[in-house]
């Protein structure tokens, strides 16, 4: 009790200094949390991917589609439990600024493979039975104010023309790691329309999604699928869904590394600021520490007071910074719209923030505490004169 009182009073001895230092920690910890959340958002797709699913695409490039007939051959590969397919649509809703992903999928097989997209049975049935039907995620529906029954017009960029879709359902993620900002519609609707205008582009799938019987067989099945189409006109590259998602992340890896570096640099800077504060604080109080030691307090007690003060100040700022991260992240997510489909402050980020706060407090106190513990009483007492 007495020690707590002493530590608290020492923390607020120079109120302006304590306030400014704590403010610095608030900004640093909140920035660290926000930047970590941005990085997490980038990896969200990969992290949410299932180990029981493979993605098969053209070995040349994702922009080259594969014959739809491959589905039957993939289904026959040992270890494959199911196959579905999808095409990136790349439509524009009203203006280019309204970006969100749209996929033409083989709805029954696709949704069976993605149980994390939860949809009321009635809406699922309505979607299946409407050739022009579509479903969107809750986040996307909320963003544009869509409700079931609305018509959603998209201007095609890859598939020219205006495409009208009937919104038949709004799916929700089984948990917060599931993307709720994607639109799905029927592959057949796209395929049949395309075949009328561009017959050579018909019956082509961008990717095949493969459900594995045993996730442990992913490598073997991947090889078997690719071997099936080796030396064909459209060779395939099969990889886990996670690897497929990470291949997109890899395109922006330099940016991610920069963000990660900045997030740690912020912590190092505040650590230096805090260390300077604690060094000044300890230097000003050498006479007091010497007095305590003269009274019989052990060196470790004096060092402990400095560590406790540093930790107290760091935690005061750190906890406010952590609390602020949540509204900041929400505001950032709102401003970004569907650019980051999954954007939330993870438990891991909060733990990292707590750890960073503690590290800042401990590192900042280390040298001042060591010096205060080592200072000779007679030298410390002289500091008052």
């Amino acid at each position, binding site marked *: 009790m*007495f020690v707590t009182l*002493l530590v608290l009073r*020492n923390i607020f001895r120079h109120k302006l200094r304590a306030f400014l230092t704590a403010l610095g920690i608030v900004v640093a910890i909140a920035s660290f949390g926000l930047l970590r959340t941005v990085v997490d958002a980038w990896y969200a797709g990969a992290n949410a991917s299932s180990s029981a699913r493979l993605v098969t695409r053209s070995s040349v490039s994702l922009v080259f589609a594969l014959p739809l007939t491959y589905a039957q051959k993939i289904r026959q590969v040992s270890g494959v439990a199911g196959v579905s397919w999808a095409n990136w649509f790349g439509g524009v809703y009203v203006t280019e600024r309204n970006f969100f992903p749209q996929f033409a999928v083989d709805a029954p097989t696709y949704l069976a493979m993605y149980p994390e997209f939860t949809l009321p049975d009635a809406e699922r049935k309505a979607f299946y039975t409407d050739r022009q039907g579509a479903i969107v995620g809750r986040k996307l529906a909320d963003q544009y104010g869509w409700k079931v029954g609305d018509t959603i017009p998209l201007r095609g960029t890859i598939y020219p023309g205006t495409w009208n879709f009937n919104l038949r359902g709004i799916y929700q993620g089984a948990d917060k790691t599931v993307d709720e900002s994607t639109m799905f519609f029927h592959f057949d609707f796209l395929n049949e329309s395309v075949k009328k205008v561009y017959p050579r582009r018909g019956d082509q799938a961008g990717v095949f999604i493969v459900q594995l019987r045993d996730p442990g067989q992913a490598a073997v099945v991947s090889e078997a699928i690719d071997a099936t189409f080796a030396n064909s006109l459209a060779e395939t590259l099969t990889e886990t869904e996670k690897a497929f998602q990470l291949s997109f992340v890899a395109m922006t890896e330099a940016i991610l590394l920069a963000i990660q570096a900045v997030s740690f640099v912020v912590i190092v800077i505040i650590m230096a600021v805090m260390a300077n504060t604690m060094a000044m604080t300890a230097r000003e109080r050498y*006479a007091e520490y010497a007095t305590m030691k*003269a009274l019989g307090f052990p*060196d470790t007690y004096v060092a402990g007071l400095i560590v406790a003060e540093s930790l107290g100040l760091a935690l005061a700022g750190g906890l406010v910074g952590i609390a602020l991260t949540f509204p900041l992240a929400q505001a950032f997510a709102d401003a970004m719209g569907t650019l980051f489909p999954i954007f939330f402050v993870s438990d891991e980020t909060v733990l990292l923030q707590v750890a960073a706060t503690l590290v800042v407090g401990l590192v900042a106190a280390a040298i001042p505490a060591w010096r205060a513990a080592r200072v000779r009483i007679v030298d410390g*007492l002289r500091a*008052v004169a």
Partner: protein
Amino acid sequence: MSGDEPLVAIRRLSKVYVRGDQVIPVLVDINLDVARGDYVALMGPSGSGKSTLLNLVAGIDKPTSGEIRVAGVDIARLSDADLAAWRAAHVGFVFQFYNLMPVLDAFANVELPLLLTSLSRRERRERVETALALVGLTDRIEHYPNELSGGQQQRVAIARALVTDPTLIVADEPTGDLDRTTGGEVLGLLDRLNRELGKTILMVTHDPKAAEKAHRLIHLEKGVLAD
């Protein structure tokens, strides 16, 4: 330890400071006894080694050679940790600049050394109140050092020095930062501690008026006892 033995027995005590290649003798072959209940003033010009001698007896510095026995314990041989525990139990300090904790009120400042004891909170409170009553500061119990005059701060420091009921009180220029009147009050208080409570006091001072209060005057010249 028999009743005839001195409380402080210093034998062949030397202290040198080494500055690079230079060896500076501060105390040379000091032999000194201080009886229990004595009130000793150490005087001498600046640099004569009187504060160093006080620091050595108080256990906040270590000699280069020799023996310092206080209440039968050769404190020169104690480890740092043991010496800290010994100081907590046996020495009360009064400094020239009071050395109070500015963030603690008078009560907490006096209570500070009692945190190293096993006394309960109630027992600590009783002791602190008694000590503050003894120095006449009962009405200033919740005042912080910056709310007290220099003389009052020194009285709080004296209360802190005696609250653990130490064997020895060491005072380094206790009136050095006070005016004559206030300094006289502090000296009167130390005198009372010696006469009424039987406390052994070792005091360093430049002030002849302060030295007059002591039972015994010891002069140091260039690290050697002058008489």
